[in-house]
């Protein structure tokens, strides 16, 4: 058992455990902060999948942006929301949650079934990539690769997403402005 494996299992365990805590906790603040842990450990999993740039982006955008935004929105929405949230139903496993639990477990079974049916570790194109040595090695320069790709192969999606970000910015600003007269 190498160090990488140990780290992977640690990260995977933290990810799933904190996600389950988010699902189980009744307090919104606690679940938001546990979601923070989930996002950080998912970033750790990205590092173990040799995608360090994506991991840093995950930390900067998700943890620094989205989570702060969620906290902000929820603190802007006042004390009454908090009071409403506290009087939710009490138990984690009540009968009304049974269909949701059933659906989630069945989805998980289907996923695992697909994984084993397709024999995912011996996919043809994956084996070919490993034998041609085009898979990512720990020392291959992925950040410069991403930079080159953004300016050549993926230029069109890059421009499209910039327009979409612009639209989302204008839309969010329009939605959250104070209405004066109609």
């Amino acid at each position, binding site marked *: 058992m190498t160090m990488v494996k140990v780290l992977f299992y640690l990260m995977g365990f933290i990810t799933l455990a904190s996600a389950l805590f*988010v699902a189980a906790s009744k307090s919104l603040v606690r679940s938001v902060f546990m979601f923070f842990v989930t996002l950080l450990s998912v970033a750790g999993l990205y590092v*173990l999948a040799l995608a360090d740039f994506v991991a840093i982006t995950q930390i900067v955008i998700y943890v620094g942006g989205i989570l702060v935004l969620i906290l902000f929105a929820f603190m802007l*929405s006042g004390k009454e929301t908090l009071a409403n949230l506290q009087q939710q139903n009490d138990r984690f496993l009540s009968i009304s949650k049974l*269909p949701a639990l059933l659906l989630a477990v069945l989805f998980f079974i289907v996923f695992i079934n697909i994984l084993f049916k397709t024999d995912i570790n011996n996919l043809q194109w*994956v084996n070919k990539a490993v034998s041609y040595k085009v898979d990512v090695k720990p020392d291959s320069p992925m950040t410069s690769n991403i930079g080159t790709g953004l300016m050549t192969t993926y230029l069109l999606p890059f421009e499209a997403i910039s327009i979409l970000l612009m639209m989302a910015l204008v839309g969010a600003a329009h939605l959250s402005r104070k209405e004066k007269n109609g």
Partner: protein
Amino acid sequence: MIGLSDFLIVSAGLFCVGLYVILTKRNAIQVLIGIEMMLNAAILNLVAFGKYDRLANGGQMFALFAIVLAAATTAVALAIILNIYKKYKTIDPDQIHELKD
């Protein structure tokens, strides 16, 4: 090294927890957190598969695009949630059942 299936199992678990959160929580912000969890599971899949293609590098590239998309979605969704809270004084998705104002 870590095999592909390990990543995919973790991601499947994360997706199912996110699904459960979406279906059970009675608070729009927590539903949003569940959606983010499912998105993260999908991005983890992209990154795990992207390990086997260094030349085109499609996996990591589209993981980046998906992260940016998630940021845009969250901004708009939170603006909508704030507006709904202003109008209905609740953010329980079950209690918001009319579209007209």
